[in-house]
Each structure stands twice: as structure tokens, then as C-alpha cells.
């Protein structure tokens, strides 16, 4: 029982961890959809002419970016119920992930928006396009494709932070590994397997992102 690596145990827990990885993936996907959407909203609001809108949003983004995700998870899970908003642990976790990475995505979008030549805004004004159509039809379609790789990096970063949801007992990979470890007093296999899962997923995603980047470059160049 005290060997360095127990293969029988490994095969026993692998299916359990595989099932838990579905929760991790679910949190990643939903969290990132939220982050990508919120990020765009923050970025656009920060461009507002009115300082009454742009400054509070800038402050909020700065605040979220400067404080730990773990505390934000606790805040949403423990503090929101005080105001009558009771969320399941998974929902609270996804919300926190989405909000936290939404502020990172907003910086990415801001860079993309800043790279749109002024002439595009001026042409839109000259054609009398409304603010909504200027954004939707002219600016956004040009601003998003170049920042897709940067957004992808944050998808990977968000994915790597999903183990934090274990702190509010969401049964994702890390929490499952911890429970398995505490039941059998063998932490080596579950935690190492979780580590390998993250490493493989990250490396594969990074390779995919490089492909997308290359494809976008070719498309932009042609």
C-alpha cells in the first residue's frame, strides 16, 4: 500500500475523475461565455462619453482585477444570500469566474477597439449610422477577430482557475480528488491525475489557439 504509485487505485478513480471533469468543463464553458459577454459590455461602457458611466465602470473593473477570485467566489456565495439572492454553489462559482475574467476580457476588447482606425468611426458618422449600428455592423466585426487569440488565453486561464470552486464544495475535479484522497489517505494519485488533466488540456488548447492565430493572420493578410 505504500508504494509510490498505485496503479490499481489509479484505474479505480479514473472514471470518477473523468465524470468530475464534466463539471469542470461545464463551469469553464459557461463561465467563459459570461466573461466574453460581460467583457464586451464593460469595454463599451468604458468608452462612454459620460464620465458618470465610464469612471464607475473603470473603477469596478480595476477593483475586480485587483482582488482575489477566491474572495469573490465567497462573496457571491455567502454575501448575496444576505440580500435574498440564493445561488447554488456551481452557479455562484460560474458567476464569479465570468465576472472576474470578464474584466480581463474587457481589457482585451479595449485594445481591439482602440486599434480600429478613426476613419471607421468618422465614416460611420458621415453615413449617419446610429451608435448601435456603428458598433454592431462596423466596429465589432473588425475589432473581435484580431483579439480572438488573446481571449483564448483567458479561456485557458479561466479553465485553470476552476479548481477554486472546490472551496465552496462544487464537485469539480479538485474537490472530487480531495474527497477521494481523504477517503483513502492517498492523495498522490488523484491530485497528480488532476494536474496531468490540466496540463494536457492547456497544452492542447494552446496548440489549437496557435492554429487559430495563424489562420486569422493568413486571412487578415490575404
Amino acid at each position, binding site marked *: 500500500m505504500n508504494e*509510490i504509485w498505485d496503479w490499481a487505485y489509479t484505474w479505480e478513480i479514473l472514471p470518477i475523475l473523468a465524470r468530475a471533469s464534466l463539471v469542470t468543463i461545464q463551469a469553464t464553458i459557461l463561465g467563459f461565455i459570461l466573461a466574453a459577454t460581460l467583457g464586451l459590455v464593460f469595454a463599451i461602457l468604458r468608452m462612454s462619453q459620460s464620465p458618470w458611466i465610464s*469612471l464607475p465602470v*473603470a*473603477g469596478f473593473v*480595476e*477593483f475586480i*482585477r*485587483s*482582488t*482575489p*477570485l*477566491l*474572495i*469573490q467566489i*465567497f*462573496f457571491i456565495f*455567502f*454575501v448575496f444570500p*444576505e440580500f435574498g439572492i440564493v445561488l447554488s454553489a456551481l452557479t455562484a462559482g460560474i458567476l464569479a469566474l465570468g465576472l472576474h475574467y470578464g474584466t480581463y476580457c474587457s481589457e482585451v476588447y479595449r485594445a481591439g477597439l482602440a486599434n480600429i482606425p478613426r476613419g471607421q468611426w468618422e465614416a460611420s458618422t458621415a453615413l449617419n449610422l446610429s451608435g448601435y449600428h456603428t458598433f454592431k455592423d462596423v466596429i465589432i466585426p473588425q475589432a473581435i477577430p484580431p483579439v480572438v487569440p488573446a481571449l483564448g488565453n483567458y479561456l485557458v486561464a479561466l479553465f*485553470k*482557475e*476552476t*479548481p*477554486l470552486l*472546490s*472551496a465552496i464544495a462544487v464537485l469539480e475535479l*479538485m474537490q472530487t*480528488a*480531495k474527497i477521494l*484522497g481523504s477517503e483513502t489517505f*492517498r*492523495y*498522490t494519485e488523484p*491530485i*497528480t491525475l*488532476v*494536474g496531468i488533466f*490540466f*496540463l494536457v488540456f*492547456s*497544452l492542447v488548447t*494552446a496548440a489549437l489557439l496557435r492554429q487559430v492565430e495563424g489562420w486569422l493572420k493568413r486571412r487578415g493578410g490575404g
Partner: protein
Amino acid sequence: MPLRSLVVSVILAFTAGLVVASFAGFREFLPGLLQGALVTIQITVGGSVLAVIAAFIAAIGKMYGPWPVRWLAVGYIEVFRGTSALVQLFWLFFVLPHFGILLEPLTVAILALGLNVGAYGAEVVRGAIQSVAKGQWEAATALNMGRLTALRRIIIPQAFVRMIPPWGNLFIELLKATALVSLITISDLAFKAQQINQTTFRTVEIFTIVLVFYLAIASLITVAMRALEERAAAGISRGRS
């Protein structure tokens, strides 16, 4: 950007005022939170020092080392960037003892976070070194400097200024990651927050104060790094004139 620090300080003052105004039992648990904050700062500083050292070694090893060193550096960077900080923390905390290595939780915390951020820092260092003009290397070679001397005396001093802003971001990432150590029973700020919350149930106030604490430390890092950047930039331009 002065705007950024302005916004931060306004929010800070506003929230602090709100908390103090609305909350009478403030004094009861402030000492506990301050103790936690000290631990958080300790881990942040220790982790940052380790991160910088690890980053330089890994970056230079990856760029100029003989192949075993290069592979080791690449392995370190990819593994620590590819897995989650919490996984690394748990691995060092739960798995190392299995191999007979028993470390203090605080040491584990500094080790895990420092190595994690160091892996990201290695890429920062590498990028900054590569951004120094090729002519500088050629001039150093023409003066018959060795590779390490050229790096130390010519290249890194120039790359240094460029590294400061990304390092500032990494230190803030490290600060934020310190909250994870509460999950391996270290009584940092995040741990104290949960502990006090379980006895007083003043959930709103506690977590708000804790967020403001983190924000304050992060602002401190930002201000310090900006000052450092200005001094370093002034040094370079003085050298140029």
C-alpha cells in the same frame, strides 16, 4: 495612468467610509483581519522574491543553456503554466509528504506560488531580453565580452525597464493567488475572513473589508512598481543623454 490610481483611491475611500459608517462591531475583528493581512503580505513578498529568481534562471536557461538545462527550463515553465496554481499548491502540500518531504505550510505556500508566478515571469524576462536591439549584442561581442558578462552588464539593464510593468501585473496576480493558501490551513487574510465569518456571521462587512484590504495591497504594489519604473526609465535616459 493617474486616472487609474485616482479611481482606485476614490473607491477605496468610499468603501472604507461606508464600512466604518455602517458598522459598529468593526473593532472586534479588525485585529484578526490585520493578522491575516500580515501573513498575506509575507507570502506575497516571499513568493515575489522566489518568482523573480526562478524566472531569471528559467529564462536564461531556456535561451542560452546547454540542452539539458534548456529542457529542464522548458519543462518547468510549461508544467507550472499548464496546471492550475491550486493544483500545484495541493500537490506540494499533500503529495510531497508521501515522498518523505515534510515542509511547513508557509514554505509550501511560498514555494508553490513563487514557482507558479516564476514560470509566467520567465516568459516576461525572455520577451524583454529579446526586445533589446541585436546591435547591442554585436557591440558587446566586438568588445570581446563573454555571453554572461554581456547579458549582465549590457542586455539585462536595458531589458529591465521593459520588464517592470508586466512584473507589476504578475505581483498582483501573486497577491491574488495567496488567497488560495487559506485552503491549506494557513491563516492568511482569506482564512481569517472565513474563520471570523463563522463566529460572527457579519458576512457582508467581513468580505467587503477583506476585498478592500486586497485592493489596498494591490494599489500599493501598483504605486511602488510605477515609482520603480519612473526611476529606472530616468536612469536609462540619463545614461543616453
